[in-house]
């Protein structure tokens, strides 16, 4: 649906050139929710603006739904843009227009008649659950409601793609979840491809199918989110993942030699990581029963990503050395990744 090939964008300032996006190539499939995560200044805002040419890349090609955007004339580009919805961190609604008028705004030049526009707007307001606010002005709405209006507006022209520029960054966690739920619904019900950028790993975890991690204008890592969460490669990615997990805390405690993670000789402190296929086995009780290894869980966490559970357990094994080795081998055999933190 969206294809970026070797896209670069440089801003010239008086002092130096700022390379916001460097040689980025992306292929986003129709119907998926694709996340781009990075710290502020990583270039993700510029990158998402390259998709609808709010920023014109200096190099590379941008194709959306088969159209090579950089080759289009201005009027052609405006037509294509109508099929690419966009929502923003600060909603960008018009203060002088009511909720209804804001949603109807993109339909002003469409071929729809007045009653058809009315019906379309009401359908969208039903989707975003704001029918009762149709005559309210944006100043009377909460942040979450404003973003819902913005989503309805972005969907008015039946776009194929929805670009979300930090759409939840100005919202509280609860509202963020409800907006993400709405985006997921939009994606599934209307089959709209969604590209979202964020600095919150929680957002990626909640709805994305695939993710690209950006740093200094480059994509440092890209893939299915289950794979990225299971096996992060780069430091930035690990860093982002740790922000959503309490596991870092355990490693810190080990480093600080906290009583909770302190072990006696003959004990092993291990980190078990397991994915979808292995969670059903009663692994720990099997180890205890069959191998005479005592297990005591000091930390446990299960994430559900794309309906796939991902588990982390930090466990102390105590028992005879060869039994523990046997237990570790058994766990690995069961497809569980095991890391000995301390022994």
């Amino acid at each position: 649906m969206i294809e970026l090939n070797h896209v670069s964008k440089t801003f010239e300032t008086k002092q130096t050139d700022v390379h916001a996006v460097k040689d980025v190539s992306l292929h986003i499939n129709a119907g998926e929710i694709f996340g781009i995560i990075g710290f502020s200044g990583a270039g993700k805002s510029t990158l998402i603006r390259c998709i609808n040419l709010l920023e014109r890349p200096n190099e590379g090609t941008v194709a959306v739904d088969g159209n090579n955007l950089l080759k289009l004339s201005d009027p052609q580009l405006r037509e294509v843009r109508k099929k690419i919805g966009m929502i923003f961190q600060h909603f960008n609604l018009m203060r002088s227009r009511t909720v209804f008028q804001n949603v109807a705004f993109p339909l002003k030049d469409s071929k729809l008649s007045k009653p058809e526009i009315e019906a379309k707007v009401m359908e969208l307001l039903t989707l975003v659950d704001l029918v009762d606010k149709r005559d309210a002005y944006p100043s009377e709405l909460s942040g979450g409601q404003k973003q819902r209006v913005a989503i309805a507006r972005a969907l008015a022209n039946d776009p194929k793609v929805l670009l979300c520029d930090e759409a939840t960054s100005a919202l509280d966690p609860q509202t963020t979840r409800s907006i993400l739920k709405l985006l997921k619904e939009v994606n599934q019900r209307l089959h709209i491809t969604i590209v979202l950028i964020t600095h919150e790993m929680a957002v990626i975890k909640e709805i994305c199918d695939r993710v690209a991690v950006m740093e200094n204008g480059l994509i440092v890592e890209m893939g299915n989110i289950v794979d990225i969460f299971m096996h992060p490669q780069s430091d930035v990615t690990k860093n982002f993942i740790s922000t959503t997990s309490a596991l870092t805390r355990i490693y810190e405690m080990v480093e600080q030699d906290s009583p909770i993670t302190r072990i006696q000789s003959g004990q092993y402190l291990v980190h078990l990581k397991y994915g979808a296929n292995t969670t059903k086995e009663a692994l720990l009780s099997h180890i205890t029963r069959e191998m005479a290894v005592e297990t005591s869980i000091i930390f446990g966490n299960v994430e559900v990503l794309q309906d796939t559970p991902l588990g982390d357990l930090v466990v102390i094994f105590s028992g005879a050395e060869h039994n523990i080795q046997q237990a570790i081998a058994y766990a690995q055999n069961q497809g569980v990744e095991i890391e000995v933190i301390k022994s």
Partner: protein
Amino acid sequence: MSGLENWIPNVIDLADEFPICLMQTLQMLLIPGLISFVFGTLFGIMLVVTRKGGIMENRVIFFVLDKLVNLFRAIPFIILTSLLVGFTRLIMGTSIGVTGALPSLVIGTVPFFSRQIESTLSEVDQGVIEASQAMGLTPMQIITRVYLKESIPGIARAVTITLISLVGLIAIAGAVGAGGLGDMAIRYGYNRYMYDVTYVVVIIILLLITLIQSIGDYIVKKTTH
């Protein structure tokens, strides 16, 4: 009436002249006001859209317009009036009376109003402009449907301020032969010590300004959401 004759004797004597002068003042307010509104809005928009980062960025147009506005804003109105005498005679046929005052009133007001419009339009959130571009609006549609529509309260405020400052300019124009209430205050009140004429003129102008301000405030209140 005997009471009034004691208080404002000269005003009673000149009772016929007041309506004429008030009409002249209103003419000088409304005609240049309307012309300045059109040109000021146009130039204000041009300043906003052609500036760096604007939706129709154009360095040359911005530079020329920006400097012209600064130039005419820098000249004190009374000097501008005398500076424009030749030009006024050329296009209006005369440099005195209401007709003669119109060009300098327009040229004195347009730059002021342009700047007001420029600053009002600049307050429109850049994000809203960006959203409109993302929706595929043409630059002209962005100007009319976003910049102007979003700025109605600000424009009403700018018109109010400009009309009030225009009342001041009209009084100055009156001093150099344009007629109107300012002219009356100077001719009778100042030159012939008929202070009561001045007082009544002040009251009329005060009422006029209060009226303008009230209408302006009302529109701002009605259009702000």
